[in-house]
């Protein structure tokens, strides 16, 4: 590996919350970064600095403060774009992944989806990359098709994909990394395949951006959605990447200030993307905070983060599998920085509640993938997910706590 590895202990120290002791006196062991990551000081300070020094509404102000706020906001767009290898004008700020996907499901589908058309998804989908398409299909008389999951190792029937990408398929949306099983999809191949056939792709990057290096041009997708709060940024901010062409192919969605060109009482004309899709006052501080997070991650180095994630994840899976009565679920080889698991005779909710009593923050349940859990006949799972600020000691401690948990309920 030819990239410098940061001093991870020093990096961890930049996250104020991680030194926290829980109510019951236990130190916090945070293993729920796939749901939401923690924030480094530098991101929190970016928000504070904005509100204390630069706060004003953007775009329509000619005074110094507003000019500065606008500059910071648009610079934030550029910094976020740069982080994923996009052009500034290809980034629409949204509340998060969910809103980004809904934007496409409304605006793109309104123009491009006809009765009889098909949207292709995978059986791995998070509800946020499933329900918007169900609603869009209902609005436009289209139907959904799914790439099948073959087992609880999270593998997909990849061989079937070329056959599934038929002429009726207008859009192919899939996760880059599954949030409940950790499966990494062959996103580049699928995007190339789809593009060859004129099918638009949307990659749900909620679990990949910020964890592995993501370059949209190499990925070759038409749309990519991701959330700030999962990659060290604030809540309430995320982004939709779209190629200039894909964005231009979308009529307006939300109407309001900022997205218009000329308004009359009876009708209006609209600006080009990205402004067209940012109606109303945007989450200005959020965008600036997200840019700070992107810069922070880039400074650590996305290759270094991915490599560190990988080491920790391997130890996590290994630790889980060593515990009597525990089975890690998901891919054998490379996977996202998380592992779902089940414990014999202990329901995931009881497991995570008990673990919480020891300071361990795990998630239990369906992880917003109900149909997948039903298909795999799992009553939910417990999930440990991590990020570069976790340590090997924390993973060892997680192992001990899970051993105790089994004993308690058995």
């Amino acid at each position, binding site marked *: 590996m030819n990239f410098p590895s940061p001093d991870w202990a020093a990096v961890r120290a930049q996250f104020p919350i991680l030194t926290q002791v829980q109510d*019951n006196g236990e130190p916090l062991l945070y293993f729920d970064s796939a749901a939401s990551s923690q924030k480094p000081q530098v991101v929190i300070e970016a928000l504070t600095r904005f509100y204390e020094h630069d706060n004003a509404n953007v775009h329509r102000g000619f005074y110094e403060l507003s000019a500065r706020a606008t500059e910071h906001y648009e610079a934030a767009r550029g910094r976020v774009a740069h982080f994923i290898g996009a052009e500034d004008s290809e980034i629409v700020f949204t509340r998060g992944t969910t809103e980004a996907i809904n934007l496409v499901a409304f605006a793109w589908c309104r123009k491009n989806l006809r009765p009889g058309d098909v949207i292709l998804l995978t059986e791995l989908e998070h509800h946020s990359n499933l329900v918007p398409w169900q609603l869009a299909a209902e609005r436009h008389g289209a139907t959904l098709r799914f790439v099948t999951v073959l087992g609880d190792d999270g593998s997909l029937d990849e061989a079937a994909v070329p056959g599934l990408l038929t002429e009726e398929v207008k859009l192919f949306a899939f996760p880059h990394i599954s949030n409940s099983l950790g499966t990494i999809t062959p996103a580049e191949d699928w995007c190339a395949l789809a593009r060859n056939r004129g099918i638009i792709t949307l990659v749900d990057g909620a679990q990949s951006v910020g964890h592995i290096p993501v370059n949209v041009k190499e990925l070759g997708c038409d749309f990519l959605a991701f959330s700030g709060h999962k990659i060290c940024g604030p809540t309430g901010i995320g982004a939709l990447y779209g190629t200039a062409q894909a964005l231009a192919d979308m009529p307006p969605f939300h109407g309001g200030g900022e997205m218009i060109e000329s308004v009359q009482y009876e009708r209006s004309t609209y600006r080009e993307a990205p402004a067209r899709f940012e109606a109303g006052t945007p989450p200005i501080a959020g965008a600036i905070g997200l840019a700070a997070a992107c810069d922070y991650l880039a400074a650590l180095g996305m290759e270094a983060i991915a490599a560190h994630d990988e080491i920790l994840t391997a130890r996590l899976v290994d630790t889980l599998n060593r515990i009597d009565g525990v089975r890690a679920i998901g891919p054998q080889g490379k996977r996202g920085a998380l592992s779902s698991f089940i414990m014999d005779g202990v*329901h*995931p*909710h*009881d497991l995570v*509640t*008990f673990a919480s*009593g020891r300071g361990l923050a795990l998630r*239990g*349940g*369906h992880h917003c993938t*109900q149909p997948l*859990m039903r298909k795999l006949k799992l*009553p*939910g799972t417990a999930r440990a997910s991590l990020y570069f600020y976790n340590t090997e000691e924390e993973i060892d401690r997680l192992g001990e706590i899970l051993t105790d948990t089994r004993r*308690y*309920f058995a």
Partner: protein
Amino acid sequence: MNPLDELYQQVILEHARRPQNHGPQPVPPAFHAEGVNPSCGDEIEVWVTFADDGTIQKISFDGQGCAISQSAASVMTGKAGGLSPEGARGLIANFHDIVTGSAEVDFDQFGEMAAFAGVRQFPQRVKCAMLGWRALEQALKQAHPAP
């Protein structure tokens, strides 16, 4: 007792391991209702048959779930039998008060239901505890629709 041990009292763990009146029992003309916990996806089904005088004759449940939802449903089936619809509604209210902390908990008065007082320290688990009870409420509504 620490909050965890209060939540997972022995009686709860016992009921969770060996629930009473458990398993699919679709005995017509039973009234049937389902409870779903949207935050976790757990589902429970409840069947109730009523005697001619309207009292609950037989009550059973099925479904997988956490120790709290399973044991709460199990305890429910032991408590609700023989009650009038009003009595059953009162019991549901009592149980809700116990798990949310609105009621002083008296073991003599509430019996095994009192063991669920530990839930009040875990607001996220209230829905688990109420899952079967809400289904019973539904079944009562079906059998005795409000006028």
